[in-house]
């Protein structure tokens, strides 16, 4: 276990699982759905995406785009605004990720990010102290995997969007349709 992973695991509050939506790729969705036998629409929600984002999927021809993010708990939860739905709150109030090894690629790389070729360990909103933690080989590998997954996903989203745009005048599509398309596009 790398020091980066150990420090993240030990973090009692997991602010990273609460301060923003966690966007997923098609690889993440298919892996979680198949491993846990839960359909994508039960654990993801669509959130608004910039019109020119390559992971933004359309549901109609209006030009609106959406991203898939992990669902959040309701605002009545102990954390204002909710948390990732997979965050388990233990009896002593500390938290652990309920996805473990299945968690999205964006979570696995945390808090590493690629800054124009240089890898940095930092994340806005995170209250952990990352000083003294080395950039490990796993971070490099996981960042490379995330880049590849996003590239693959952009291709799948482009195919979906082309289909949606060809459906002018048809019934409005819903996120569940996109979820089914993902399971089809990422076979077991």
């Amino acid at each position: 276990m790398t020091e980066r992973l150990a420090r993240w695991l030990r973090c009692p509050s997991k602010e990273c699982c609460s301060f923003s939506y966690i966007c997923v790729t098609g690889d993440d969705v298919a892996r979680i759905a198949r491993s846990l036998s839960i359909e994508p629409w039960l654990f993801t929600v669509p959130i608004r995406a910039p019109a020119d984002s390559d992971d933004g999927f359309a549901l109609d021809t209006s030009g609106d785009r959406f991203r898939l993010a992990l669902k959040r708990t309701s605002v009545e939860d102990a954390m204002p605004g909710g948390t990732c739905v997979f965050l388990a709150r233990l009896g002593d109030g500390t938290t652990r990720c309920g996805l473990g090894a299945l968690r999205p690629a964006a979570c696995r790389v945390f808090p590493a990010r690629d800054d124009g070729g240089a890898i940095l360990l930092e994340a806005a909103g995170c209250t952990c102290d990352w000083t003294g933690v080395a950039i490990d080989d796993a971070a490099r590998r996981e960042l490379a995997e995330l880049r590849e997954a996003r590239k693959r996903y952009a291709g799948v989203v482009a195919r979906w969007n082309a289909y949606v745009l060809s459906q002018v005048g048809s019934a409005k599509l819903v996120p569940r349709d996109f979820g089914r398309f993902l399971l089809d596009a990422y076979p077991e």
Partner: protein
Amino acid sequence: MSEGCRGCTGHCCRDIVVHVTPFDVSRIAAAQSLDPLQIVEPRETVPGDGQNGEAFGARIDATGRLFSSVLRKGALDQSACQFLVHLDDDHARCGIYADRPRVCIIYPFVVRQGSIDVRGDARCGPGDWNMARLDYASVRRELAAYSAEWHACARIVEAWNGAVEQGNRSPSFASFTSFAHRVAGAVASDTSLDVGVLERWDEAQLSAELETARRAWLDHVSIAAQSAIRE
């Protein structure tokens, strides 16, 4: 994920008190970077908890009552296992699925009249388990390993209770859990042990070789427990 668990709403994680062994606790602690006391809490045992119907548990106070270790409940839903993740009203999943206790792995199966069956008090929905499609070999291996680790747990508890009775240890749940965790860790890290014996533990026809291996494994657990008592 087991086929029968696919439509699960987590009844078994809410309605059942999950009794665990030090081996379960060690696996979860390592995988989740948790202290064992964040995982388990004590629960007084009642006659019938043991494999042979005896009261089975550790002495953790001066009263002589016996306690077993059970998974703690969650902070938000105190009726549910703390590791249960609620997706919505109809869907829930185990948040430590890959490292879940053996008793959860084997749920809801038991051996009845010599073969595997769904236990009578299973909280699963009707038709969730199609016995014609069950991977019997895999379930039997898991049931055997479950049984083996509970036999080993009995040795650990026996060593602890003996030490308490002789005044070598002050009874408390924290010190028992720490002791049991050390023993389980020592057993798990001993590469000289034949762990294959766990999966064959309950073979109906005990060969002399398997019987010897079973005894050797349990003796090793007792030695590790006595060693931890002396530390």
